[in-house]
């Protein structure tokens, strides 16, 4: 009987090892360990054994059953692993083929620059003021210290609709409207982005429509040095920490004193084609708000002072991205637009 069991074990282990698939293995399990299998048969025949042979035989049966089970389980895992391997091999793809494209869109470069500047000033406590593009002569010129017939009106050639209505030449009328809303009480801290229009023929450097961002701060003790500090912070964040600003006296009817603001060139002052060899790039116009403008907007100019500045997004985008023709912004060639969807 012992012999018979040993032989059974040997036979079953051999068959399990040779099994080709899970089904065959299962058949082997049923054949040897099932209710009608030989091992069970042996157990059934144990009744005929003597009392001392019985436990010995019982232990042997268990050993055999164990050995067969182990052999089957081992084979089962290896067959399963093989099956997975096979499936995986069948499922493999050429990972170098292109993926399914996700449609990407993106900001226009002018919006990109505008939002960047907006966010930068929002971080400094500014809010964004907007206003109409078709303006009254009063808000665009007269309230900005540019009465009718003032020679400085020639500085901004204007599209008129009627003698009293025009396309705004700058976003300054929004400043006037905002100051009037404040009814003589500060502080005012705004930036005004938007489209503006001038009677210029479109060419590589001129556009009859362009964008401006102007800023205005009015308070009880606003100094020229505050303007300088604000613009210095702006230039460093917009163009890089190593940039400097330089103020040059200039003239705008709505500010006094007035300055042009240059930002140091990325060539580091050595001189290059962008700065035309000077090491400086003109980026902004600015100044202290003219007392006439404050007064016309309802602020007491002996109590309040303020600064204002303005810049053009087209110019900044051209400098920042190296764009050589302002008309690109309005042509909207996809090959142009797509370059600005990249995050930086």
């Amino acid at each position, binding site marked *: 009987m012992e012999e018979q069991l040993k032989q059974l074990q040997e036979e079953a282990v051999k068959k399990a090892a040779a099994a080709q698939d899970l089904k065959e293995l299962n058949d082997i399990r049923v054949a040897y360990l099932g209710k009608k299998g030989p091992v069970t048969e042996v157990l059934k025949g144990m009744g005929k054994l003597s009392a001392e042979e019985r436990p010995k035989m019982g232990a042997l049966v268990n050993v055999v059953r164990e050995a067969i089970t182990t052999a089957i389980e081992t084979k089962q895992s290896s067959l399963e692993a093989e099956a997975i391997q096979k499936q995986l091999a069948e499922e493999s793809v050429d990972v170098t083929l*292109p993926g*399914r494209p996700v*449609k*990407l*869109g*993106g*900001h*226009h470069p002018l*919006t990109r620059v505008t939002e960047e500047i907006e966010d930068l000033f929002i971080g400094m*406590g500014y*809010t*964004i003021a*907007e206003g*109409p*593009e*078709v*303006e009254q002569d009063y808000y665009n010129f007269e309230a900005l210290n540019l009465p009718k017939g003032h*020679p*400085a009106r020639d500085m901004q050639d204007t*599209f008129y*609709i*009627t003698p*009293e*209505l025009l396309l705004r030449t700058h976003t300054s009328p929004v400043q006037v409207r905002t100051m009037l809303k404040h009814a003589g009480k500060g*502080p005012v*801290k705004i930036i005004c982005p938007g*489209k503006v*229009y001038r009677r210029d023929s479109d060419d590589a450097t001129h556009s009859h*429509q362009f964008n401006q961002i102007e800023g205005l701060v009015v*308070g009880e*003790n606003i100094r*020229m*040095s*505050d303007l*300088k*500090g*604000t613009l*210095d*912070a702006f230039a460093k964040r917009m163009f890089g920490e190593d940039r400097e600003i*330089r103020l*040059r*006296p*200039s*003239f705008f009817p709505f500010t*006094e*004193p*007035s*300055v*042009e603001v240059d930002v140091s060139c990325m060539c580091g002052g050595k001189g290059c084609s962008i700065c035309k060899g000077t090491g400086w790039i003109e980026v902004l116009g600015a100044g*202290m708000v003219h*007392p006439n403008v404050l007064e016309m907007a309802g602020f007491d100019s002996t109590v309040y*002072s303020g600064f204002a500045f303005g810049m053009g997004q087209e110019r900044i985008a051209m400098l920042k991205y190296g764009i050589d023709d302002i008309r690109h912004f*309005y*042509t*909207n*060639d*996809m*090959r142009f*637009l797509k370059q600005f*969807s990249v995050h930086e």
Partner: protein
Amino acid sequence: MFVSYKWLSQYVDIADQSPEELAEKITRAGIEVEGVDMPASDMKGIVVGYVQSREQHPNADKLSKCMVDVGEEEPVQIICGAKNVDAGQYVAVARTGAVLPGNFKIKRAKLRGEESNGMICSLSELGIESRLNPKEYAEGIFNFPNDVTPGEDALAALNRDDAILELSLTPNRSDALSMIGVAYEVAAILGRSVTIPQPNPAEGNEHAAEAVQIRIDAPEDNPVYIGRVVKNVQVGPSPLWMQTLLMNAGVRPHNNVVDITNYVLMEYGQPLHAFDLDRVGTGEIVVRRAEEGETFVTLDDAERTLSADQLVITNGKEPIALAGVMGGANSEVHAGTVNVLIESAYFDGQIVRAASKAHGLRSEASARFEKGVDPARVKAACDRAAQLMAELAGGTVLAGSVVAGEYAPEPKKVSITLDRLNTRLGTDLQMGGVEDIFSRLQFQTETNGDEITVTVPTRRGDITIPEDLTEEVARLYGYDHIPLTLPEGESLPGGLSPYQLGRRTARRYLEGAGFYQAVTYSLTSEKRATQFALEVRKPVALAMPMSEERAFLRESLLPHLMEVASYNSARQMGSASLYETGAVYLNEGENVQPKEEERIAGIVTGLWQEHVWQGEKKPADFFAVKGVIEGLAARFGLTDRLSFEQAGPEGFHPGRTASVLLDRQPIGVVGQLHPALAKEVDLKEAYMFELKLDVLLQAAREELSYTAIPRFPSISRDIALVVDRAVKAAELEGIIKEAGGSLLTNVHVFDVYEGERMEEGKKSVAFALTYVNPDKTLTDEEVTAVHEKVLTALKEKANADLRT
């Protein structure tokens, strides 16, 4: 304004300043120097030559063979093509080896068999624009007057070794429209003194008042008019130094009398005019407003029709000059002029501006009057011109000036406290430093405690208020010395308004959906202005457009987006999704600001989705773009308030276009560009939408509130309905929702079939309905009860049968 370095050095010591250094200092102090031109820098080897003989070139009709003394032992032979070359002339000779502008090298050459050892030069060849050449030499070579020596440096003799600073003047700094004005500025920058000419013409016995009488009939426009008479002048070329300095200042030399008036104009900034006194005829000058329709021939031989808002100088009978703008042909100085009347006057800026604008005549003179001349220089400039005419034109200055009117405004006094100055600038200046700056400007000051009172000379009409003093101090103190600070006091929270935030959200949403943002022009043609407009009004028109293409304000963003799509399609960028946000302008009537509505619009052409190697290509269609709008509405929580209705606006495909409604009010359009229109702009299928972004964002401005996630399972029922083809899905959906009541939480179309297996005129629309009770688990019976109600309603209201 062109400033000659050599000329400027007559008034202020700049010998230790290179032109470039000087230019940089002037720029940094407030007047931008746009460029420094050094004409001699690209020329060499040019000397004075004396033409000893000239003969016809033996082999060429148009060439002359000249023997020219160039200061060497032997004269050199030069072949010259200029018509005006002749023996006895002093000329500019570019020797063999010389270089002319444009790196033009002069080599020994044989011209038609005759040797030529250099070139006799015209002024243009020496880099002087031909419009500035004296007329007699403009077409040929230049002749020096007799005061030069063969062999000497011709460039120095012609003042070509000068440096010319080009000043770009802002409108407030008209004081720098004169050499003396620039001298004051440079002196202030360098802290030096200014030497101003003190004219004191030697006078004859005859009194000017006997030769001419002057009367002003329009004192508002012309507060003062000064005349001086110079008799027995000899009209001829002015001396070389004057001609060359004038050319360097951008003024063309004519003759000594005219050149002197121009020279003094440039020197003092005071425009002068010289009349031929004999041609004036009456011995009388009357200044008056022109009569409406009066005609007059200016010295450019053009007949001008005048109007009553223009000022004329008359001889008591007829106009002889348009005041401040241009003289008349009838009284012009000419070669035979003997007696000259010099006019120096103060004309009002506005009246000169009106006349110069009306006749399109802008001159050095009118530009200065428009900006306001210094009343203190009217007399001095007149004297200076008279003196120069005596010296350079051999005339006799009659005794005294004839003066009509009076204009001697008191210099303005402007005060500021040191404290105000420092608080406005953020500086810590001391009174001594401030006084020093004003003394450099040659402004008189008076200090009283903390307050300084500045007497501003009339030459600086731009300084009228304390802030102007602040600017003078700041620019001469130097902006580089002002510290960097940030505003102090109350700080404000910055940020975007909900509307601005919403606009950014809408843009980002569309970009996430694959749209690129375009920015197009607001101005357009009349045709495009109203095309595709949600609401057509008479478009707002520019009074004086620059072109027909940019003459009206747009009422829709779509026409330009269509053009952009067409542009890209023509460049093989076949598939494009583009959008724009921006204003449209709706006419509200004459002289009223138009209503500006912010819109968001898009266009899609070509493929909506594409995956090349897997062969997937989904062309854009109506539902792709409609889905974008639905997504946008969902983004702002407006899904339930949005609906679509079949619509047929002009320009769109009549069967594939819908009006977009929010709360049943139209807010936009979505549809296919009409194929006929698409063909016009070379587009294939294109789908477009435009929405009232402002309305959408206003509607979206509600607080977000959270609804609990249902804790109980939902039950779904699908139904396939057979209805007439004309029945809209939205109708069916409406019926289902109404009948479904609160248990019905979702309903959507999942299949539409209109094929051959359907009965003629019918279609099948399948809906998936989801029922949930948030408070308990729904039973089948409860759902069936509601569902039956839905089916009954569908049958009753839309004659919908269940498809079997």
